[in-house]
């Protein structure tokens, strides 16, 4: 197997670091994926149920402010609501910073952090109300992160039944038209989650389904709901009576959560799901136009192991096409920034403790200009993959401007560009970049021109 430590860190990880060695072997990388999650222990993110402020705290504070409007308590109630809101905004920023910082300190190249961003994008959720802006990362932390080296089916179940997904794709509003609840209070079906489950999360848009399957799956999913206090909740009174047939499989008539579990299991291990995810992984990690043999190997492994993601990742790291010397993928803005922060060895506390203004100026706004606003993917299909979608005049302006300006503000002392060119690009950097690093007229420009080089922006 043509394992190459430098390529491994750049292509399958969060990049090279001056303080952490590149991965020693594919085995060592995989051990990180399945072993104890030290990075998450060191830089924790509270899960959804423990994240503060809670949804209810925010709602109550806002409601109190509305009720108090025009009374003597108006000022105090408004201040209390603002304070809660600020707490949420602060938590969101901390989550954002922690996510980036984890990529800076991750051992063995940072494969786990890359897999996390791949699956978080696959199961994109964005906040549809001001009350949940700080709760997206906790969703990723508890529904996705624990399953990166586990079974796809377990991840699918955790994600699909998570309050944030139920809210994002309108499932909590969907009620079986013939259910007891609909007969009593009205209401009806909403197909959104069912459609995206098929089209995006499992069998894919080219998969063997039609409108009838969407409808049947939507009926099958009725009853799935949640409350801020208790999280996911199954409500038999909201479930559509009768058996449903999805992709040719008929599921039990009884309105029970187990029916949903079995349907998700069927979708998770469906051959079309294996094909869809195999291709998506190969496209994400290796090439916008991946080697068909690589895709076939991933697909076979997915099917053979019934969606064991550690085994699928092992197949990815094992395939010769994964190690093609030419870097064909372009780092998306978040990955670009994360790998730059890792190469600069920016201390995690520098990121996590940053004040709001600094964070916006140095990280948040530049990412937006580069085209990737944090946790605001344009739709449930996540961020684009193709190189051309990111390397536009505007995207380049954002990258170059950030590379020239941000590092000097993030670090007390910049490294010597003549050393940094090897820290960032490995022991054999392209000659023009070496020359440019040496010829820059100032230290920030020397660092900037390395980080803005085509060589650093590809992986």
């Amino acid at each position, binding site marked *: 197997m043509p394992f190459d430590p430098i390529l491994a860190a750049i292509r399958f990880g969060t990049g090279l670091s001056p303080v952490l060695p590149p991965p020693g072997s594919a085995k060592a990388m995989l051990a990180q994926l399945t072993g104890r999650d030290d990075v998450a222990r060191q830089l924790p993110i509270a899960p959804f149920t423990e994240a503060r402020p809670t949804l209810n705290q925010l709602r109550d504070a806002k409601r109190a402010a509305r009720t108090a409007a025009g009374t003597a308590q108006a000022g105090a109630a408004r201040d209390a609501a603002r304070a809660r809101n600020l707490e949420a905004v602060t938590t969101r920023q901390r989550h954002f910073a922690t996510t980036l910082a984890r990529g800076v300190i991750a051992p063995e190249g940072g494969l786990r952090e890359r897999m996390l961003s791949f699956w978080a994008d696959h199961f994109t959720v964005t906040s549809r109300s001001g009350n949940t802006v700080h709760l997206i990362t906790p969703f990723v932390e508890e529904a996705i992160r624990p399953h990166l080296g586990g079974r796809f089916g377990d991840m699918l179940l955790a994600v699909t039944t998570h309050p944030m997904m139920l809210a994002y794709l*309108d499932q909590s*509003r*969907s009620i079986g038209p013939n259910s007891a609840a*609909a007969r009593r209070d*009205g*209401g*009806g*079906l*909403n*197909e*959104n989650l069912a*459609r995206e489950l098929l*089209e995006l999360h499992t069998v894919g*848009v080219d998969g063997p389904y*039609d*409108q009838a399957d969407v409808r049947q799956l939507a009926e099958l999913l009725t009853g799935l709901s949640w409350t801020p206090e208790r999280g996911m909740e199954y409500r038999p009174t909201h479930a559509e009576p009768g058996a449903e047939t999805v992709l040719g499989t008929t599921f039990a008539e009884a309105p029970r959560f187990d029916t949903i579990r079995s349907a998700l299991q069927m979708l998770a291990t469906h051959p079309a799901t294996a094909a869809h995810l195999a291709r998506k992984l190969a*496209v994400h990690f290796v090439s*916008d*136009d991946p080697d068909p043999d690589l895709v076939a190997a991933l697909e076979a492994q997915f099917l053979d192991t019934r969606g064991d993601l550690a085994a699928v990742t092992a197949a990815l790291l094992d395939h010769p096409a994964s190690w093609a010397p030419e870097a064909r993928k*372009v780092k998306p803005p978040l990955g670009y920034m994360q790998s730059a922060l890792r190469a600069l060895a920016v201390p995690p506390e520098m990121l996590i403790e940053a004040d709001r203004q600094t964070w916006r100026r140095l990280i948040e*706004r530049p990412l*937006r*200009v580069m*085209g990737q*606003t944090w946790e605001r993917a*344009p*739709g449930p*299909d996540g961020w*684009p*993959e*193709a*190189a*051309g*979608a990111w*390397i*536009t*005049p*505007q*995207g*380049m*302006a954002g990258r*170059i*401007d950030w590379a*020239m300006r941000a590092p000097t503000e993030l670090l007390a002392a910049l490294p010597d560009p003549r050393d940094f060119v090897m820290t960032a690009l490995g022991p054999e950097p*392209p000659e*023009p*970049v070496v*020359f*440019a690093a040496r*010829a*820059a*007229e100032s230290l920030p*420009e020397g660092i*900037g*021109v390395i980080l*803005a*080089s*085509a060589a650093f*922006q*590809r992986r």
Partner: protein
Amino acid sequence: MAEIGGLNRREVLRGGLGLALGCSAAASPLLTPVAFASAPWENRLVVIILRGAMDGLDAIRPVGDRDWAALRPTLSRDDDKAERLDDGFFALHPALDRLLPMWRRGELSAVHAVSTPYRDRRSHFDGQDILEAGTPDFGGPGGSDGWLNRMLQTVPGIEAETAYAIGREKMLILTGAAPATRWSPDARLRLSPQARRLLEMVHHDDPLFRDASAQAIGIVDGLAAERAESAPAMADDAAGGMAGAALTGDHVQLAEFTASRLRGDTRIASFSINGWDTHGRQSASLPRALSNLADTLLTLEAGLGPAWDRTAVVCMTEFGRTARENGTRGTDHGTGGAMLLAGGALRGGRVLGDWPGLGQADLYSGRDLMPTRDVRAHAGWLMRGLFGIDRAAIEGAIFPGLELGADPRLLL
């Protein structure tokens, strides 16, 4: 102040980076209306993609249809506030009120019961791909180009400045072999001459990066020159209370930037407005999106000045929404919908289209507004009228397989 030197912007764009320092002759509409005009036409076309599937039935309500109120029991409650259009069969959603003067001047119209050729699966992403590709199928990632780009491919002498894809999102509609520039109004780039030279060096061997950064530098130089030149004029405008100056938001910024390009050499522009996927509580969510659309059109009108009379704006969406409201007082993904047309070049103030009716038997699949014409036909007739593109090119290269059909006479 920027100097007007011997270089023109094209040379800057071509990569004379070291030479181009602070020296650009970007066409300021106020100072150099003719000297640098390189576009093949004077007319302008703006295509706005309404992402998320606009409910055309709610935006342009068929209040005169006998089945209307029953299909939309809660959403039709404020019909009395919706201004009647034309002969009163249709009414304009109250959130579009601010556009009534435009409508009455004949600079705004709607086409109803239209759709792309996309049917049945009702996926936003496929629907948008097909809308922007302008073909019945979409070839998959990277395998297809957009119809506005294909139109540019049929015209000689197109330069990067002729067409702009604006905003942070990728616009498939302008992707393809013909040059087009992509830019978002919030990008900045501050570089020393030496840094420019070195950047050119580290991008030299990678055409994707080389071209994108050369273009970025060209645009930034052009904008700086234009700002410097037009600063006094802008101050006058502000003092005089320019229409639309009070509007804010990303969509307004996009529209302002679009107008600034179209005042210069740009003739084609496209951007998107999101927020149309109104599955629940549509009475609260749709007005927000419609109001953004109204802001956008008013900002374009104000920003274009005299060029508004030579402009057509097309607002199109991937598909319509279900005829019936759903259980959550919203609507789900449907088929037929509406498109909106604006601009001083239009013969507007009309609701066009062949109305199919809303009776159970009239609906597509018993649930959606039946499309009676293809949105591409109207886009095609606009290109024909604005730019003189010939029918064979429209039915062949731009919208392969489309039959343009009868001329809806959209333009003055």
